[in-house]
Structure formats: structure tokens, C-alpha cells
């Protein structure tokens, strides 16, 4: 590869990693005619363009990317009608001034002009003398660059014990809609983080989280204990080590980012509740919003975790017990309670 496009490699890697409004797709190197398995899979991005055809009705539940093929604007329009009063924290800084050097402009930068003159003289093997030519003159240009809205992390934590090991359509719909809503508010600057827990807890990929493409969660379902789960969140916020199937431990800096946490569970916690509540209280100041969702017939019961959590009276904590019913009314009511101030 020559330098003609060699310098574009970094741009490509950054683009693939960033969250934006480009469509994500995959190129599989596969040979159907000779029945060979997928030998290489490459993630690709495409700029949207005016094109034929309707979107698939499937919301991408079993697709490679939960947001692929979804009519985002329709879901957002629908959620607009729910009159959610949730507002994200305002921008802390306004625009910033950026100073650049240019060959054209009105305000000369004398230092850069002299440096340019010197470079020319060295290149031409001339003796140093002050002789500024037109091509040496450099100008300051000032660009008023608006800072992006503060970006956000959205941590979705899911209980995979017992009957919760397969995510229900209702829970998926709630997580999806909150994701889209946050992306809408933060203009796509939202990083999604997934944690699964039973007794143990681990960060996983999106495919493992939602069982996409046959991928399963890499921890065993069995009993349920919340302490490891919340300790994992705590480790992310502190920048310490924790278990991860994606091979990288991340550090979420809540001073620069807004952090949202959604915990989906059936409410059964085998750990003593107090230590878990203590961890929650310690991380609450770093969370913009903590959303706790208990699903199923046991949700909200007197012996469920939610009854202990009710003692935490903080404005950024929202708790909901809901039935596992994917009707629009149930989804709307749940999200309204989780997102409204």
C-alpha cells in the first residue's frame, strides 16, 4: 500500500469505532457454492443515500446490530407524542476559539512568517537574512468551533439468571427505545455498554447481550447476586479492572460524560441487600440517571430488591415494576416512568 491512501487507515479505524448515523453492515467472505464457512467478517459503514425500497419490518431483534434497519425516526416521532419531560444536563461550555495558520487572511502571524522565511532560505541554501517574500507570509485565522453537546454513556445491565436468561421482547423494546431517545438527545454521541450478571458479572458485546446471531452470554445462568454487577459498574467509573468478554476494561469519566444506567431484572437478589445499596449510593453521584426495571410477576413484591431500593431517595433514581407484556401501552408507561423527571 502506498502513501496515497495509507494515511487514510487511521481515519477508517476511527470511523468504524465511532457512533454516528451511518448504516453499519458486514462483509462476509464466504463461499456458498463450495459450502465453506465464513472465513473473514469485516465491519463496514455506509453513508446514507436516497435509495429504493422500504425498511424491513423487523426491528433488528435478531440482526447483527440492534439499530440496523430500524425506523428510528418513526420511533422517535412516536415517543415525542408521549410528552416526556426528561431533559439532559445542559452544556457546560459554549463554543471554543480555534487558531489556525493559513496562507490567506487578514491577520499576519509574524512568528510563523519568519519561520516560513527561514525554511525557504534553508531549502535554497541561502545565508540567513531578513527578506520576507510574499509566499512566506502566514496568517492567523480564527474559527469559532461549537463544542459538541456533552456525550453520554448508556450502561444496560441485564440479569441473565434462571428465567431471565433470554431477553424478552418487552425488555428489549424498552432498552431499544431508551437508546434511541438518548441518541436523539445527544445527537448520536452515545456509547452503549452492556453488562450481564447472574452470580457473576461481566461486560459483554451487543451480540452476546441480546443473543444476536446465536451468540450466547458467556456467563452461566443460575442464581442471582447484584453485588458483582454493581461493583462492575463501579470499576468502570473508577477505571479499575473488571471482567469483560470484549477484552478491554474501559474507564468512564463522569466529569466529561453523562452516565445512564439501566438495570433489567426480576428483582431476586441472593446477596444481602445492604452492601448492594451501599455500592449504589456510592456510584449515584456519578450517574446522571439510574433506571431500575423489575419485570415479571415477582416485580415490585415486598421481598424484591426494589423494596430495599425504595429507601434511596435521590432524584436521579427511577424505579419501575412492570409486567412482561410487549403491548405499546405497557412500553409507554414503563418508559414514561423511567425517563420523566
Amino acid at each position, binding site marked *: 500500500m502506498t502513501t496515497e*491512501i495509507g494515511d487514510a487507515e487511521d481515519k*477508517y479505524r476511527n470511523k468504524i469505532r465511532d457512533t454516528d448515523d451511518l448504516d453499519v453492515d458486514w462483509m462476509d467472505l464466504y463461499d*456458498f457454492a463450495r*459450502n465453506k464457512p465464513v472465513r473473514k467478517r469485516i465491519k463496514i459503514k455506509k453513508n446514507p*443515500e436516497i*435509495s*429504493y*425500497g422500504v425498511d424491513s419490518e423487523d426491528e433488528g431483534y435478531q440482526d447483527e446490530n440492534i439499530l440496523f434497519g430500524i425506523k428510528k425516526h418513526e420511533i422517535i416521532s412516536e415517543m415525542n407524542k408521549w410528552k416526556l419531560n426528561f431533559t439532559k444536563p445542559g452544556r457546560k461550555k459554549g463554543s471554543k476559539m480555534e487558531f489556525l495558520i493559513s496562507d490567506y487572511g487578514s491577520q499576519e502571524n509574524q512568528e510563523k512568517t519568519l519561520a516560513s522565511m527561514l525554511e525557504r532560505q534553508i531549502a535554497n541554501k541561502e545565508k540567513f537574512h531578513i527578506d520576507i517574500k510574499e509566499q512566506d507570509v502566514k496568517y492567523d485565522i480564527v474559527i469559532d468551533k461549537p463544542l459538541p453537546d456533552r456525550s453520554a454513556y448508556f450502561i444496560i445491565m441485564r440479569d441473565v439468571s434462571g428465567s431471565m436468561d433470554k431477553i424478552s421482547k418487552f425488555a428489549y423494546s424498552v432498552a431499544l427505545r431508551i437508546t434511541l431517545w438518548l441518541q436523539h438527545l445527544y445527537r448520536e454521541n452515545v456509547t452503549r455498554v452492556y453488562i450481564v450478571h447472574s452470580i457473576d458479572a461481566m461486560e459483554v458485546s451487543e451480540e452476546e447481550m441480546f443473543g444476536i446471531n446465536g451468540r450466547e452470554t458467556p456467563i452461566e445462568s443460575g442464581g442471582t447476586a447484584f453485588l458483582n454487577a454493581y461493583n462492575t459498574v463501579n470499576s468502570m467509573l473508577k477505571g479499575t479492572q473488571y471482567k469483560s468478554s470484549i477484552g478491554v476494561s474501559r474507564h468512564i469519566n463522569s466529569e466529561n460524560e453523562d452516565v445512564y444506567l439501566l438495570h433489567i431484572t426480576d428483582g431476586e437478589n441472593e446477596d444481602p441487600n445492604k452492601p448492594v445499596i451501599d455500592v449504589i449510593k456510592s456510584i449515584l453521584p456519578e450517574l446522571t440517571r439510574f433506571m431500575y426495571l423489575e419485570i415479571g410477576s415477582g416485580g415490585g413484591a415486598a421481598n424484591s430488591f426494589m423494596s430495599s431500593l425504595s429507601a434511596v431517595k435521590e432524584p436521579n433514581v427511577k424505579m419501575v415494576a412492570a409486567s412482561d407484556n410487549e403491548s405499546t401501552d405497557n412500553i409507554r408507561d414503563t418508559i414514561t416512568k423511567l425517563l420523566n423527571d
Partner: protein
Amino acid sequence: MIDMEIVVKEGAKVHDGYTKAAREIADFAVDKLHLDFEDVEFRLVDNDEMSEVMALYQDPLPTWETYQNYYMQKSRGEYRYGMLYEIVSHSVIDPATNKKKIISYIRNSNKEHEVLSVIAHVYGHLHMDKNNFICKRCGRDLNMDVKRRKRYRELERILGVKTVEEVYDIGKSLASLIGIDRPKSLDEEIKESRDEYYDTEPIIPRKDEYDAFQFIIDNSEISGWQKELLQMIHDINTDIAMINVMIMHEGFATFVQEKYAIEKAKTDPAMAMKMEDFLLGIANPINEGQLRYALGFRLFKYVEECWNKGRHGILYESLPESEKKDYDNHENKGLDKVLDIVKTKTDWDFIFSYASQEFLEMYTKEVKDNIEYLKRTLSENNPNFYNIYSHLDALDKKYTYDDITKFKVNLLTGAESYTPPVFIPRGGGNYDREGGLLIKQDMSLINKYIDGYKKKEEDEENNIYSMLTLDNHRTAATLLRIYGIWKKPVYLQTIDPEDGEPMLIYTGDGEDIEYGSVPSAQDPGIN
């Protein structure tokens, strides 16, 4: 003997063996097939260089997308799956002869039969480029691409990589707005001139603008460097947007390739067999990425046979079925007809005019026989068993059709490079009298083909309108991007996927997408 300059080089050195073979194939193509093309220089290159040439030809600017294309092509080459075997690149002026010369790249890892096949294939492409009424208007200048690359880097240096990339991405979305001028009747031209002459208020644009991208560049309030960058992207993509002949391009090149293989069989049957086997891999109807090759090649062969045997026209159609089967009046006009199609048609004309019921039955039978064979031989132990099986099922469903018009539209919209034609109608630059922009889907070219289509009741979700509508999330995202440039509401008139009636998709604020109906007084309808 041809008097063209044909040479095959590997690095700076001329490859004598392949040069001789290339000249023999050119002799055959010009004398026997009556092809017409310019001087050619073939360059044998490795996978890396081939991938780079392809990426830079598709997009000469040093962006993330260029690298992505390079990486995809390189990976395809490493696994020898879905890779390009040749690229017809820029034309240059040979300083020695002062004549135009086309540069074409071939993989140096190809076997001999692949190289010979690819050379024949390239000659098909070159004939198409020189003779087709659309292709001969196109052509990109290599020196211009180098200047554009340099200027892009300069913009990045001055403004920052991310800043420039944001506008680049918007430009790539706008590239789908380069429409094609529709030939107008005399009455339409007279009406247009009269309306323009008697305008009492400023109307923007004064007549229908088919290059909506250019219109947006010229009339939006953006800074100088943004205009410059968008203009670069527009100029690079204009040729690609014009090429509505991809099925014909690859189909004809494969047709020429097979003609040479048949010729080769007279002197070297073993080589000819390998070439034929190679061709069937390229024109494999099972592989969706090869649709252009598979469909185009087979249709050209069918047309040639029909016109060789006189199986066309009113007299033939009036024969009873039993007589049609063996009819042969030795007309032998097949090749002439193929060359005539190459010169004068686009893909839509080609498919709708020549893909008869008989041809489509033959083609789908071949596809389904292949599917059946693969299903029978697929092992349950294959780790991708379910993926493969569901893919084959989906393919089988696609090729089970109940309406021939719908099937043809499905094939055409499924092929690559079919950016829907759009335009800005007269006055569309101030559609809502508040500076809003109206873009309309141009159905005039397509309506003549789908006229007579009757949507069936059970066809709720899979009718022709759902294939031709522009109502999808990609279009919605594009409108939001256009708003970012136009800074005022942006409207798109397309067809309702359920009934084909005109509908509006628009954004008033650059954040939300809304739907509306087209006011009846606005225009006579897009049909």
C-alpha cells in the same frame, strides 16, 4: 491485423507472451465481433496494488471510505472470494504516439486461462465505454484526481481532519442526487421556454434541474471551502451516477469473453474448457453479487440466439407454440442486434424490452436448480448450516414470482449503482415560499415500464411500489443531511409504498422527519 497499440506490462517490463496473446484476442474481437476500442496497456499487478487502484478509482480522495474500499478489496483478493479480476482505469495520452490509451489492470496471480479470459472481458468493456450513448459522455482525468487528492489534504491541514470529513460524508449522501437529464418533447420545451419568458416573479430554478446536487451547491449558503469540497465530490461522482448500464456492461464483457473461449476451443480445447469453467464461476446466478454478470450475459446470449433464428417480431409471435419451438429462418442478425443494444440502450430498456417470459423462465429454472443442488449437498455439520440454508430459502423466494413486471423491477433495483433519478422541479428552490427545497423522484422513465401493473390484494407488502418508493431510513437520514447544508426545510416527493400515489417526506427542522400529502395544485403528478 489490427493497427492498435496493445501491450501487457509487468512493472516496467513488457510481458512478451501475454502481449502476443492480447493482440491475437484484439484481432479476433475487431475482425469477428466488430468491436471498436482504443489502444490498451494492460498492467499485471499484485493484490495490494489492484486493491489500491480500485479504491482510488472509486474515490480518489484520501478518506476513510477509500481505505474501507481498499481493505475490502484486498481481503477479497486474499481469500479469492468476490474479488475483481480486472479494472479498466483512466485513459492517458501516450507521449510517444500522442494517441489516447486506456490503462487496464489485471492480477499477476491469475492463471493463464484467467488472464486470457480477462483480456477478452476488458475488450468488451472498452467497446461499451466507447460506443454506448451514455458511457461515451463519461471519463475521469487521472491528473485531476491527483490534484483533488492534494487539495483534500491541504483542506485537512488547514481545517482539521474531522471538520473536513463531516462535509465529505454529507457530500457522499448528496451524490445520490445527481439525476439524468430527461429528453423532452418539443411541446414540453416550448412550454418551458414560454413559462420562463413570462415569469413575473423570481422562480428558482426556472426549469427542472436534474442535477439536484449541483443546484444545492450553487444555491445554499455555505462557506467557500465547503462549496469547493462538495463540488469535488460532485465531479467525481457524476460519471458513476450516469452509469445506468451496469448489467449491460458486465453482461456484454462476459459475452465477449465467452465468444473468445469458443474461438479458442478450435486450437486449444483444454484451455477453452478452463476458460468456460472460469466464466461460469463469474456468471454464477446463485451469487447475488454476480447478478449483473449472470443476468446480462445470459440475456445477451438469448437475444443473439433469437435474432440468429428470427425468433422475434409480429410474425414469429403469431405462430402457434408448437411451431415456435423449432423455428429457425437463419436470419443470423444476432451479433448485430447485440451491438445495437450495447450502443443505444440502458439497463431498464434492456431488461424490459428483451427479457421475455421464456427467458425469465429459463433463468429462474437455472437458479432454482442450483439452489436445489446446494441444499442437497449442504451438510448439517457445516457450522453455518442455518445461515446458508436461510440464504438459499430467501433466494428461492425471490425467484418465485407471480408478476413478470414486478420481478423485473425487483431484479433491476437489486442490482448495484441504481441511484433513483431525482430532480428539482421548476420553483422547487422555494417550494413553501420560505426557502424550502423540493426534490422529486423522477418516475417518468420508469412509468412506461410499469404501466399496466395491477397490485393484487394479497400483495400488501411486496408490491412494485414498495420496491420503487424512496420511503426508508436511508432517505430520511439523507434529508436530514441535506437540511444541514440547505438550512431550511427539505421536502422529497416520492410514491407511497402501498398504492403508488405521490407522497411527501420532509424535515422542517433537521431533526424530525414528517410525512405529508402532495397538494393537488402543486403539480400534475409524478406519473
